[in-house]
């Protein structure tokens, strides 16, 4: 870089630029917070949905699955699993995982020993998640 362009000019660009764009982020975040209630339907977050999210977290489901495309890529997307499979299937699937696994190449899901209440709340959470306005993502029902 030429001599006319000094270190203090570079430093000013750094401080000015990063401050400006951080403030832009804050402004966009403020606007997002105003718009979100219409997209996330938070009025439908019942105690069951909130508890379902805790069950989801306590069993580290994100360690294998994606949820709205975020997480691990080892097992299917679950943001739309309620639409794909239905609540009863989800419960039956979680309940029927063999504790010792099944020998072979197929990927294994642990037996989490969830209570009937936990299963219901997990399904409530996944149902609510499926109703978030995600701008039509995923591209199809397979997730």
């Amino acid at each position, binding site marked *: 870089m030429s001599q006319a362009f000094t270190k203090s000019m570079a430093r000013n660009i750094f401080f000015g630029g990063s401050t400006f764009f951080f403030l832009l982020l804050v402004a*966009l975040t403020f606007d997002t917070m105003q718009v979100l209630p219409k997209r996330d339907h938070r009025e439908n977050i019942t105690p069951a949905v909130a508890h379902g999210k805790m069950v989801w*977290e306590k069993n*580290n489901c994100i*360690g294998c699955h994606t949820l709205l495309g975020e997480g*691990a890529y080892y097992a299917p997307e679950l943001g739309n699993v309620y639409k794909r499979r239905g609540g009863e299937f989800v419960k039956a699937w979680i309940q029927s995982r063999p504790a010792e696994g099944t020998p072979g*190449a197929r*990927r*294994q899901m642990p037996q989490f020993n969830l209570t009937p209440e936990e299963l219901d709340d997990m399904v409530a959470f996944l149902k*609510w998640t499926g109703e978030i306005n995600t701008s039509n993502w995923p*591209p199809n029902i397979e997730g």
Partner: protein
Amino acid sequence: MQYQSQAVAKPYFIAAIGLFVGQILFGLIMGLQYVMGDFLFPAIPFNVARMVHTNLLIVWLLFGFMGAAYYIIPEETESELFSPKLALLMFWIFLVAGALTVVGYLLVPYAALAKMTFNDLWPTMGREFLEQPLPTKLGIVVVALAFLFNITMTILKGRKTSISLVLLMGLWGLAVFFLFSFYNPSNLVLDKYFWWWTVHLWVEGVWELILGALLAFVLIKVTGVDREIIEKWLYMIIAMTLITGIVGMGHHYFWIGTPEYWQWFGSVFSALEPIPFFMMTVFAFNMVNRRRREHPNKAATLWALGTGVMSFLGAGVWGFLHTLAPVNFYTHGTQITAAHGHMAFYGAYVMVVLTIISYAMPVMRGRAANSNKSQVLEMWSFWLMTVSIVFITLFLTAAGILQVWLQRVSTTPLGFMAAQDQITLFYWMREFTGLVFLTGLVLYIISFFVGGESKEAA
């Protein structure tokens, strides 16, 4: 070594390398579980292995950053560390807390661990990369604050250079944005929105300040180029990093319930995110070409150049590959993301930590550079690990393209598992390449124990 207290960096670097080995071993376990689903099941299910793999990565990089700061800051400020004893105490606290956390992951079911560690009081666990139990998270905050206090006090009493200022801003940013990990509302959209304030503003924000400062420091040392020039580059690089990267966070806000204007902000700004990484490459090569001295540590120079190139490829090019919203619509949450993640983390953060270790370890062991024999071995490990990560990335990219096609583009889309079954070959090749990476890592460690005639410190 110019200052006695720089020596506290040594245990930090040793711990970093040790945990790096653990990270790779768990990566290999996961890679095998991709193709042999029952491997180590139910003893180590995939989600546990992944948590250990990613958390070890984060922790060892933090050890690397802290060690780097303890090494660099005395030299930059021309004064001893404020408190070397505090630095050593924090080392042990961080190491024990980290080890206990990993032991907890491995020995106790995650739900039981959550219960034991009072997750019900303040739920923060079970979110990607932020799986640590509450006491561990609090421990990280305590260690980070004590570390920052130590570093800040040292800078306040000594010479203030741009490198130390940038490093300090990066480290404070790291601590501040970690605080978002304590915010976990029951609204998943809000949870995800602010989860990224830790994750994105770390790896595509403040960590790049740390990266830039570390690279600039090593380049001054090995090239002898005038500090004014190097620091001017540093400011321009980190200016572009934050100008593009802060609003570039929008590329994570495409499909998680956030408003659609983020598709524009995210696409445009993150399309510019390769620029600072490209500047980093040009910077590294330029400075080495204009060098005013022939530093005997060739290996450190190689790592510095490698950081420039590989961070541009991994973070810049592979990031750009899937960052535009219309592309990301199809690639979001597939092996493409995994491919990018592997090369970006290796190219940017792993390599910069290995750069500073490569430069600083010989000095701390009383010589300007290791023996030729040792350096040759280190350079072999550089090539083995770097070429391996390139191929791991290529194989995962191929797997990702096929996955996207079979599952999301085809007129007769396959289900997730059916699509995965079709791409097994690439997972096998990835696993094999992972073994080559491990070989490189083993050679890297051996290089520390190779003797021979070495140049004495000046």
